[in-house]
């Protein structure tokens, strides 16, 4: 007990350093001044000053998603905390490990409606994996260590630590992570190893399949790069087709011949039909979300389903499965490979050949074809060219906002590695992509980071251009500008008689001039012939860039499973829609 007492802020900083934190995304304010003062007096942790707290959380999400580490956020009380709520909810929905430290008014003022007071733990309870209000400085170090353990273990997620200002200034004792490790394990210990009997059953079922499919999601990526390698190894061992969710892109190489593309509402024709017709479905780290299943009672009606997930609450939530396996993807798939090899599993090659023949027939529809013959730039073409022209780069990280551009990016940009694709899947947060790109670039200063954006989403968090400028982060903002909230307009066209209520983006800024005011490079293309040149120019400059790619404003995102429809009721293009009006049940769905 000879250690000199530290104050709460120093304890916090020491705990963060001991947890391996290198970067914090934050914004100061009254309640966190002691923490900023402690940060000012150290050099281990780098602080990125964002321009709004929402940007801090998305930045930390980009950082976490691209590195596999925990993203750390520091914001003040009241509005600082409430501004962080969208990002926390986003991280919860997409299982991103975040520790968010919020300042709080001093303990004796809590409940008194003090200046910049809000009930942070109350507000964030449903949008975090767990949260803490620290009232005793001697609990602080333990709470911080535990928060990191909770954020990164099991199904990752955001954790809030609410720290009253008097606690941040009070003297207390520090405890090392190793001193609380055992208690943490006792308190929160998700199951990571799958049940061996279930694994054996699952492998037998997989081996006996005649029309199998692997359906894999973000859980593979959260399990770490080894999980992607093991999954790839297993899929190749079987020779079976594999499809990925939006969150799973990169978990299996897009260049592999067994890859069918993304599935779901804007997934490929072959992936969705294979899901519908399969006899054995192997779901790995995905959660049967409504964007994946389409109409539930018509979802893959004749298949036996295996579901591997670390979160027991994901099992049987939307779809009843036959063999659930609770565990970490890397562990479970590794065990499956062992059983597969030792049992010398031999799939029915004749059946498999017939299944692949069927899949090839679906593929031959070429559902992602588009026509770039007119004078207007097609968004699909712009993304395809971006992909082709960046292939030579060692490492390309793509973030997106939410809407049509996001779906086109998912369809036309191809990922061979995990952790290269950052998108807001579950919550669908417009304005995610720019701050996320900022966070990715902070983590990977020399990599190419592109935010594929839409003009409407971009405006939602464009204050972070200032942050990008301050830290000289060479982020490329690739705006597919169609002068509409494109996905809103697409749904209005399909479901609401083409009455485009409030979806036109009037009074847009001149994006090239905007870039100029933030000391960025501004570029613009309006004709197909200019696309390659502006992309090359964007890649050539070692500065942040805003590229205003003005695209065909009428283009819609296809293929599409209209809401309330089944996987085998896809619309392939604008000519399809007259034949299949959306049902009344479908109208109420989002």
């Amino acid at each position: 007990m000879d250690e000199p007492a530290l104050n709460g802020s120093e304890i916090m900083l020491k705990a963060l350093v001991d947890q391996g934190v290198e970067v914090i995304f934050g914004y100061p304010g009254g309640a966190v001044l002691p923490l900023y003062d402690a940060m000012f007096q150290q050099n281990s942790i780098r602080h990125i000053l964002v321009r709004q707290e929402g940007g801090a959380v998305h930045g930390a999400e980009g950082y976490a998603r691209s590195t596999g580490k925990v993203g750390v956020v520091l914001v003040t009380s009241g509005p600082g905390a409430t501004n962080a709520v969208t990002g926390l909810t986003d991280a919860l929905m997409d299982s991103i490990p975040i520790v968010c430290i919020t300042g709080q008014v001093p303990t004796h003022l809590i409940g008194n409606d003090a200046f910049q007071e809000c009930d942070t733990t109350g507000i964030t309870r449903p949008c975090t994996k767990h949260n803490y209000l620290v009232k005793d400085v001697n609990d602080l170090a333990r709470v911080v260590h535990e928060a990191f353990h909770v954020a990164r273990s099991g199904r990752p997620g955001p954790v809030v630590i609410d720290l009253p200002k008097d606690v941040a200034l009070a003297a207390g004792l520090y405890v090392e992570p190793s001193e609380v490790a055992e208690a943490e394990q006792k308190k929160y210990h998700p199951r990571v190893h799958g049940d061996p009997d279930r694994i054996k059953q699952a492998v037998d079922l997989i081996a006996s399949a005649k029309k199998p499919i692997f359906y894999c999601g973000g859980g593979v990526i959260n399990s770490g790069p080894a999980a992607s390698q093991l999954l790839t190894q297993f899929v190749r061992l079987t020779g079976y087709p594999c499809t990925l969710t939006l969150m799973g892109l990169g978990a299996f190489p897009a260049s592999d011949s067994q890859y069918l593309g993304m599935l779901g509402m804007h997934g490929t024709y072959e992936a969705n039909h294979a899901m519908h017709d399969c006899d054995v479905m192997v779901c790995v780290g995905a959660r049967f979300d409504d964007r994946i299943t389409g109409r539930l009672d018509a979802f893959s009606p004749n298949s036996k389903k295996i579901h591997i997930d670390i979160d027991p609450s994901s099992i049987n939530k939307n779809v009843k499965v036959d063999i659930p396996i609770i565990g970490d993807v890397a562990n479970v798939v590794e065990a499956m490979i062992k059983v597969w090899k030792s049992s010398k599993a031999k799939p029915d090659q004749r059946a498999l050949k017939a299944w692949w023949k069927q899949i090839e027939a679906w593929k031959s529809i070429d559902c992602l074809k588009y026509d770039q013959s007119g004078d207007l730039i097609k968004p699909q073409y712009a993304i395809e060219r971006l992909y082709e022209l960046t292939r030579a780069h060692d490492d390309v990280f793509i973030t997106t906002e939410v809407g049509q551009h996001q779906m086109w990016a998912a369809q036309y940009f191809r990922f061979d590695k995990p952790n290269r694709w950052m998108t807001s899947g579950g919550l669908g947060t417009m304005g995610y992509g720019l701050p996320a790109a900022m966070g990715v670039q902070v983590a990977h200063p020399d990599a190419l980071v592109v935010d594929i954006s839409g003009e409407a989403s971009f405006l939602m968090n464009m204050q972070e251009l200032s942050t990008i400028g301050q830290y000289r982060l060479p982020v490329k903002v690739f705006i597919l500008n169609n002068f509409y909230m494109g996905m809103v307009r697409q749904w209005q066209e399909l479901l609401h008689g083409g009455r485009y209520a409030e979806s036109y983006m009037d009074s847009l800024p001149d994006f090239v001039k905007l870039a100029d005011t933030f000391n960025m490079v501004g570029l613009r293309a309006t004709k197909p012939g200019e696309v390659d040149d502006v992309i090359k120019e964007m890649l050539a400059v070692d500065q942040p860039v805003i590229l205003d790619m003005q695209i065909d404003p009428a283009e819609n995102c296809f293929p599409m499973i209209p809401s309330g429809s089944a996987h085998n009721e896809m619309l392939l293009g604008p000519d399809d829609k007259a034949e299949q009006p959306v049902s009344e049940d479908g109208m109420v769905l989002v």
Partner: protein
Amino acid sequence: MSTDEEIHKHTIAVLVDDEPGVLARVIGLFSGRGYNISSLTVAEVDIDANLSRITIVTSGTEMVIEQIKAQLSRLVPVHRVSDLTLEGPHVERELALVKVVCVGEKRVESLRIADIFRARAVDSTNESFVFEIVGDTGKLDAFIHLMAPLGLTDIARTGIAAIARGREAI
């Protein structure tokens, strides 16, 4: 999907760390996900280990009940979730305080009924009684139903506390 769509009542016992906000976490989970609570009781059961026990009576399809248990289990301060309805026989008890305001023949009748139900008068004035009654929910409902025409004015019920029969503990 050919899942069981029948709605069943389940009594679930949850052992939690006794810390601020833990009840809000549990209740918020039910309201946020649209689950039903028909009864909820909570009290500290182990002061040394700082544990509280929450007893929840809820209803839903088999899939919903499974979800409720899985969602409860993944809350960090939750130690154990036990579905007493599924895990074999168990005892359920509830306590009610029932105030009856009456005089004359009704007063005598209320005492007679209380005797049959083994309810105790825990407070008495010239024109009122407070009865304490312990039993399962059905017994309390029946008692309250009989007291209604006799001047029933106020009811306080604790909600259900439940425990498994036999030697197994949570």
